[in-house]
């Protein structure tokens, strides 16, 4: 049976260091299988977060050979096993231990985004009417599994540590799902420009490249939101037209 070596981050904080583990690999294995095998054979105290093993819970996010990926969706057959496979924790969040990071910052940011606020019901029985084609656009954003790989790869968080001023691609996807919903009447554009710091995004598209759900984050969420910010704050002509035709109806109207 072929063997492969995995170079895994061990320890916590500044004392963390790589340690090599060699184990048997077989057809069909993914990186998470290999990590579990290492746990079983030689490192029972190796900490890693996982849950569904099907690419739907977003728990096993890590950096494999330097690329943010889900361990459960990365096949060993796609990696060059003649070289050591490097497995590291996410770099944009505080390191807890081994492959585990504290991603709770994301939940605090999400709570800050203005929630869904529907217009007044269309029918007396309290229901709404909308066209499927109008709501189709936001369905893509609902595929997000909150693995935070997009947050990890975003250089604004990863390299510039702008966690206090920048919400990150995951939350722009969330904001886009609400902001572009045909029933929603809340206005989040000011927040996006201000406390969410969408202007920090310089459209590297790294978030789109790493998304395991293949959400077109940059083209379908961030850039359309940037254009709405331009409408609101940077385009004098659009602002002039808005005086006569508001973008969204008032809540309850």
């Amino acid at each position, binding site marked *: 049976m072929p063997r492969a070596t995995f170079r895994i981050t061990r320890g916590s904080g500044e004392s963390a260091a790589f340690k090599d583990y060699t184990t048997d690999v077989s057809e069909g294995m993914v990186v998470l299988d290999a990590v579990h095998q290492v746990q079983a054979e030689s490192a029972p105290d190796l900490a890693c977060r996982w849950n569904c093993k099907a690419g739907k819970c977003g728990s096993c996010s890590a950096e494999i050979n330097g690329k943010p990926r889900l361990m459960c969706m990365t096949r060993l057959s796609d990696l060059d096993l003649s070289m050591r496979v490097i497995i590291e924790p996410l770099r944009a969040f505080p390191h807890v231990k081994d492959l585990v990071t504290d991603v709770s910052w994301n939940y605090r940011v999400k709570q800050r985004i203005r929630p869904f606020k529907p217009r007044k019901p269309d029918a007396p029985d309290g229901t709404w009417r909308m*066209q499927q084609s109008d709501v189709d656009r936001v369905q893509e954003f609902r595929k997000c599994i909150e693995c935070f790989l997009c947050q990890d790869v975003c250089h604004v968080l990863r390299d510039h540590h*702008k966690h206090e001023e920048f919400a990150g691609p995951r939350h722009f996807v969330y904001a886009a799902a609400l902001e572009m919903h045909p029933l929603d009447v809340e206005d989040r554009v000011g927040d996006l420009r201000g406390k969410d710091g969408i202007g920090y995004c*310089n459209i590297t598209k790294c978030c789109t490249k790493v998304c395991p759900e293949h959400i077109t984050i940059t083209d379908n969420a961030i850039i*359309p939101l940037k254009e709405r910010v331009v409408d609101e704050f*940077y385009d004098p002509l659009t602002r002039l037209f808005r005086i006569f035709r508001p973008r969204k109806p008032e809540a309850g109207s």
Partner: protein
Amino acid sequence: MSGSDLQLPQLRGMGKTSRTDAWWLQPGAILLGLTAFIAYTTWAALQGQNYFYDGGGAHYLSPFYSPLLFGQENEPRVFAATHPSWWPGWLPFSPAMLILVGPAGMRFTCYYYRGAYYKAFWGDPPACAVGEPGFRGKRYRGERKFPLVMQNAHRYFFYPAAAFVVILAFDAFKALWFTRADGAGSEFGIGVGTIVLALNAILLGGYTFGCHCARHLVGGGRDTLSDAPVRKSCYTCVSWLNRKHMAWAWVSLVWVALTDVYVRLLCAGVITDLRIV
């Protein structure tokens, strides 16, 4: 935002990464490609000659010089002068100088190119998950402050760029008509140059009308389009083009330069135009 207490990993220096693939290949290719294009465009724009070919009755105008506001008598100029009266005498004049700022601004502020040249020229970041120059750190300002906040003016470059596409399409149409040998009127014809100019207009149209701000302007800025069928159709078409915006951007960039090269070589007599019809 309650993130000030985050204990984050140490930053990596410029180019530091655990990536094992050739991450430098794409930004390197972009750096070379854009540098070569800028160098050639600047050289071609400063030449002020060999931009209009009328040999064999043809009517081929280089896209770098279209619309030709000022030019020689035999050229399809807009104004009856070789150069504007206000042009400083000490500064060499070329008609391309007056118009290239429009398409250049469109490309410079384009969402695709922004991401590409921030990586290739600024190293911001050099590639995904690759370390940046350490001096930026928390001083990074993105597109929030001057000068990069001006990127928000992209749509104001889109409007003239869209007009340029119409003008270039008209140039391609004019390239379908060849002056008769006896000078009495013109006749329909297709030369290789006609196809080159037509492809140029099509590719630039695919790039310009598939841009993100066009997508926003035709309908992306609205939450409902089912009540506006024309806008919905436009939005669908622009979105279709937009999916391959990067490909349109590069193919149109290369082709517009090749179009100028073709016209320039014809004018210089290096090659001859093959008349197909």
